[in-house]
């Protein structure tokens, strides 16, 4: 299966596949080792939600204020663009040049404009 992939010129994707496998195996192995080696306690009381020692009042499934949603959106703005910074290492390999750095900062500046816009529209005022 790998040989056909290599002939079809998809060798590059082998690394991505290994990356995916490592990402999958590591967490799973931790969970399994913990399950196998450590003692466990089951029980309704053990799994009750923790609220500083008191039984929680009401359910957590309720209507939330819109401000929480706006905060989540703004967090997303910077979280996703960190994802775009990874390929920068591969794409800009033309050697030592300040040019890539400036391009990076321009990209970050454009993203932060979203934050400024949200700030002006009062998303942080929380009322």
């Amino acid at each position, binding site marked *: 299966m790998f040989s056909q992939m290599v002939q079809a010129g998809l060798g590059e994707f082998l690394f991505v596949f290994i990356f995916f496998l490592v990402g999958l195996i590591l967490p799973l192995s931790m969970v399994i080792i913990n399950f196998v080696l450590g*003692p466990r306690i089951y029980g309704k009381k053990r799994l009750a939600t923790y609220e500083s020692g008191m039984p929680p009042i009401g359910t957590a499934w309720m209507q939330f204020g819109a401000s929480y949603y706006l905060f989540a959106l703004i967090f997303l703005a910077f979280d996703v663009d960190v994802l775009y910074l990874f390929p920068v290492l591969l794409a800009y390999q033309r050697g030592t040049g300040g040019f890539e750095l400036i391009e990076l900062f321009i990209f970050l500046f454009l993203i932060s404009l979203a934050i400024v816009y949200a700030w002006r529209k009062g998303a942080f005022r929380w009322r």
Partner: protein
Amino acid sequence: MEVKGNGPICIPSRDLSQEYVESPAVVGFAPVQDLLDLARVNSLWPLTFGIACCAIEMMAAGVARFDWDRFGIIPRGTPRQSDVMVVAGTIPHKLVSTIKTLYDQMPAPRYVIAMGNCAISGGPFSYDGQYAIVNGADKIIPVDVYIPGCPPRPEALLQGFIKIQTQITKGIIDANRRADKAARKHKK
């Protein structure tokens, strides 16, 4: 007039109602478990649950001079991430359900230190007409180590943690230490 007011609460601590099922590890070889015990011993995370005056001594044990970070002890806020529950102070009736809930919400393996006379036996506040407190933490949760004192000094609390460490590793550390000492004496 007979003495109204209930006597000290005396729930025999052995038949604590087991609302939870405790299952030992699947792979139970001795060397593996001993190795794990050594790892557990050096990162005992206590639950920050100070009730009264002993809480101040517990905080003093955690700060600059006595600094229990040297033993890998990092106080945690939630019972989910803590191994040791230090019951530091008097246990009134209103707090009994809270202590039980917190103890139940701690993952295995979990240990309990009863710090101070109040947590051991009600201490200076227990007499036969007392209506307010439970005489000792072992009436409500199983306790591993008792630290006497009112309040015990921070060093006593550190010694309590060391005693729990020896208990966890079933004395392996001491055994090695005794073996070394014997070897040194033999060589002399």
